[in-house]
């Protein structure tokens, strides 16, 4: 059984349909890239996958012992976070909150676990630094470490390279790719960057108001829609 199955999902808000007939499934270890223009319903789909919003029709089910609250989410930066006085450690630890139950504070083991995630992402040395003083790439790593604290199974990344320079962007993609390959974490990434999607992902979901494509990336680049987009973005590497 797949980790995540969307069947006949229609999404929208205030009664208006944004995208319909979404059918796809994500298996453990997949790297799915969701692409599509602005307004195609990408962010609505993210909310639905996270269980923050109900689809207008259809069902989203999780399987293989994955609960919908076990999807590690890497959100886009909000305005509030840009000048937030918090240390890296505090933010990474907050990813463990869902494992606390009724306990008000974090245990020693949890702090140790958070430290391991920071080491995994090479930000352990920043542990007591202030979040707002970090570079864009470092901030993304902090939020990624927090997401890893929340889950070891599936990551949902919303435009993880937005606003990063080319060098840091590449590093970020390599990092995500290694989490997928070496640690076996399922990755769902929403992106504008079709070139990178084709390079790193194993599956592509291209949505517009109706889904244009879902399948393996090898098949995607052969389709007309895939061709027209990859060429428009500067072709393959």
């Amino acid at each position, binding site marked *: 059984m797949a980790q995540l199955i969307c069947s006949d999902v229609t999404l929208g808000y205030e009664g208006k349909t944004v995208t319909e007939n979404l059918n796809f499934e994500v298996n453990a270890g997949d790297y799915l890239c969701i692409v599509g223009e602005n307004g195609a319903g990408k962010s609505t789909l993210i909310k639905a996958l996270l269980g923050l919003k109900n689809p207008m029709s259809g069902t989203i089910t999780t399987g293989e012992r994955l609960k919908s609250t076990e999807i590690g989410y890497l*959100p886009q930066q909000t305005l509030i976070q840009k000048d937030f006085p*918090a240390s890296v450690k505090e933010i990474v630890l907050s990813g463990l*909150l869902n494992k606390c139950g009724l306990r008000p504070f974090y245990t020693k083991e949890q702090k140790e676990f958070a430290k391991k995630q920071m080491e995994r992402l090479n930000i352990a040395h920043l542990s007591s630094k202030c979040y707002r003083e970090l570079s864009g790439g470092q901030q993304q790593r902090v939020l990624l470490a927090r997401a890893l604290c929340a889950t070891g199974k599936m990551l949902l990344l919303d435009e993880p390279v937005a606003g990063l320079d080319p060098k840091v962007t590449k590093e970020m993609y390599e990092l995500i790719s290694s989490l997928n390959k070496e640690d076996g974490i399922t990755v769902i990434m929403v992106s504008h960057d079709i070139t990178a999607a084709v390079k790193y992902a194993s599956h592509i979901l291209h949505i517009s108001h109706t889904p244009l494509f879902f399948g393996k990336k090898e098949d995607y680049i052969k389709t007309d829609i895939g061709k027209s987009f990859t060429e428009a973005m500067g072709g393959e590497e």
Partner: protein
Amino acid sequence: MAIIEKLWQYLQFEFVQNALVVGVLIALCSSLLGVTLVLKRFSFIGDGLSHVAFGAMAVAGILGLTNEMILVMPITVIAAIVLLAAGKNVKIKGDASLAMLSVASLGIGYLLLNIFSSSGNVSGDVCSTLFGSTLILTLSKFDVCLCIVMSVIVILIFVFFYNRIFAVTFDETFTAATGTKASLYNLLIAVVTAVIIVLAMNLVGSLLISALVIFPALSAMRVFKSFKKVVICAAAVSVICSLTGILISIMASTPVGSTIVAIDIVVFMIFALIGRR
């Protein structure tokens, strides 16, 4: 030495002791929540909710209720929930709905007081509600006990839910997505905020509550870089400023609220200078 002797003499009075206890507790509670409110971009909530409380007090006065709290507390709590917990789904956005509610209750409250008031000195009453100039020096035993009980509850809630309050403040979406009931904690923050503001009206009056909520938090944020340190520093700054303010106002017979705010401003400037280095 004469000043210290005079101060000692004042400290023997029960009303001065009451004022100090209540002042410190209110300052502590409002600064704890202040950090969260400022970071959530709700700096004006103190001002807005205290105006709602003012409107509610006017209504309570007209209805002839002996204990105004019975009406004022629930109305303010509801207003806080509407503003803070309803969140992003409402048609009129955060700051606009806050401004609307604030101005409306202030206006209606004053209008009602003018039409129905039995007291001959309406503007005097209004002035003391808004600026709290003498209220804190005329606290009853009941006021003091109520304030102590409420403050202890607020502080316990804050300590117990500290990690959750941090998570909800920093990133509501992530917190909700990973299975923590973010809306529940937003509700909790809203209710506690309303309780503190109604209590704080006794100390500094309606107009100056914002200062108690925002200044300590902003001062602490200039210098410290982790959430925990900011919270602790804000609490310390708030308590020290309020203590000094109350003592100075008693010695120099200045209005309590404005004196505290003046000291808060000075401390903020000092912290801003330290933070720039």
